[in-house]
């Protein structure tokens, strides 16, 4: 079962439908209305996109810390930043803001599940980004924006934690389903 924690975003149900392609059993609840018995039974926890920054959502941070290393965790956009934030990363404002922006992303790390140097178009909705340099045990930055070099994906194969700054579920993202399929079967 996949448990989606919704940070009251307007894209969350696109994610629900995208993940439903690979797992029929999906629960989606607002971050302030978590059903902990269901959450406990989940194989995968997904932290959704949403407004604001990771520090605005202490409940989601708690859940991340509790289930790290016990369940597969996936973060998208705000969810991606929440993972980094809880791994002592700093989330900062960026000068150029990307809302509804399609840009080219490149796989930059050979430890990625995806083929190094592969490039594809993605949809982005974020005004904040990861401050670099960023180091955390077992975490690799695996994709970057081709133009600005901003971190676009992280992977931690050992603890099974994956995050995308862009939106795999957006109609602007090429091969979004393939990305999700691969990390769900990893």
């Amino acid at each position, binding site marked *: 079962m996949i448990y989606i924690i919704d940070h*009251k975003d307007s*894209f969350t149900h*696109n994610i629900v*439908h995208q993940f439903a392609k690979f797992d029929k059993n999906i629960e989606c609840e607002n971050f302030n209305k978590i059903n902990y018995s269901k959450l406990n039974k989940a194989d995968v926890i997904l932290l959704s996109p*949403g407004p*604001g920054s990771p520090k605005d959502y202490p409940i989601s941070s708690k859940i991340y810390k509790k289930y790290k290393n016990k369940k597969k965790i996936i973060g998208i956009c705000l969810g991606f930043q929440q993972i980094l934030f809880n791994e002592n990363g700093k989330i900062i404002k960026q000068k150029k803001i990307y809302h*509804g922006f399609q840009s080219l992303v490149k796989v930059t790390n050979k430890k990625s599940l995806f083929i190094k140097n592969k490039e594809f178009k993605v949809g982005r909705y974020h*005004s904040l980004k990861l401050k670099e340099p960023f180091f955390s045990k077992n975490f690799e930055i695996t994709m970057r924006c081709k133009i600005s070099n901003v971190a676009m994906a992280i992977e931690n194969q050992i603890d099974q934690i994956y995050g995308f700054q862009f939106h795999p579920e957006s*109609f602007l993202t090429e091969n979004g389903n393939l990305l999700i399929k691969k990390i769900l079967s990893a």
Partner: protein
Amino acid sequence: MKKNFYLEKLYNSKKPFIIYKVRDGYDLYTDFSEKIFLNNKNINNFLKKIKKKETKNKPLNLHIGFFGYEILCNLNGIKIPKQKDLKFPKGIFYKPETIVQIRKNITIKSSYKNYKKLFKKKYFISNKILSPFKINIDITKYKKIFKKFSKKIKEGKTYQIKICTKYKNKSTINPVNFFWKLMKTNAAPESFMIRDKNYSIVSCSPETLIEKKGNIIKTKPIAGTLRKTQKTNIRNALSYFRNNIKETKEHNMIVDMERSDLSKVCKPGTVRLSKIKYVEEYKHLYHYVTKIEGVLQKNISIKNIIVAMMPGGSVIGCPKVSTLNLLNLQEKESRNIFTGSFGFIKFNGDMRFNIIIRSILNYKNISEISVASGAVVDSTAINEFKENYIKAKSLIDLYK
């Protein structure tokens, strides 16, 4: 249009009626046997009991009316702080007993045999302007709000937010006269008018929010408007939208948001873009439009659909809930009908709803016209303020 004796009589009476644009003409509804005032308490019951046994007179098996902005926020669990308001109803739905189908020819269907005689005295209301139009937010105030919201965008609290301004005057209007004048210049696909005893609404809304037939649901968000000039045509309008980064980003955002709203009530895998980023041409402008549709899940109620889709995202901003909260904290005056929805729900559960924009509400001898345009990162306060005026202008011109 041909003169019709029945219509002339109706227009010159006090009898309430509603006109709604359809593809090849207009449907006029009248002889209302029920009039339901909605409030936060009775709305659930209203939506639950709306599916009824059909009668023989098929085009009359429906309730037609509107949801105001506030009641839609409430359905979504969003409370609005106290605002100045006219005490205008939060929503009204009517059950018509007579329909006049205005096409090349006029067809009248009624549940009443004597519908032609159901008129009282002659009555005519003339257009009178008692005070000039005033805007509720001037450019200085607007710039301040704009700056505040731009900061919220940089902090990621909202990705796009539509600032609403309101033009008001004291006036009495003849809505029939206004509506047909407006339809000559701008017969937008979701146009409608309501004339009731103590209020009227005249609208040339272009935007369809919900079209539900059986288990298929469609929406058609508009994001992007270009004024027509002698140099523009549909082809260069398309390349204008495609090359304009601001318009493209706004449009993309609305498409993903509407996909997500539909996904709340549709079967996984069925939501698709049936026509993507194309241009619709109107008499004075071009719109950048995408059509999205899906197949409804089983056991989805009418309320589920209304809550998932309303208020329509394209006129609010994104993400919807946090943006609504920002707007509600900012706005000192009730939106009334603006960014609510007008349309009908049939007894079999089918429905059609628009988004109430480009509309005049006349109530207690006050006319109000609300408009909104988007603050996104690339927009400037002055341009958006002007865009608001352009949107209101064709309606304000009716008073001349």
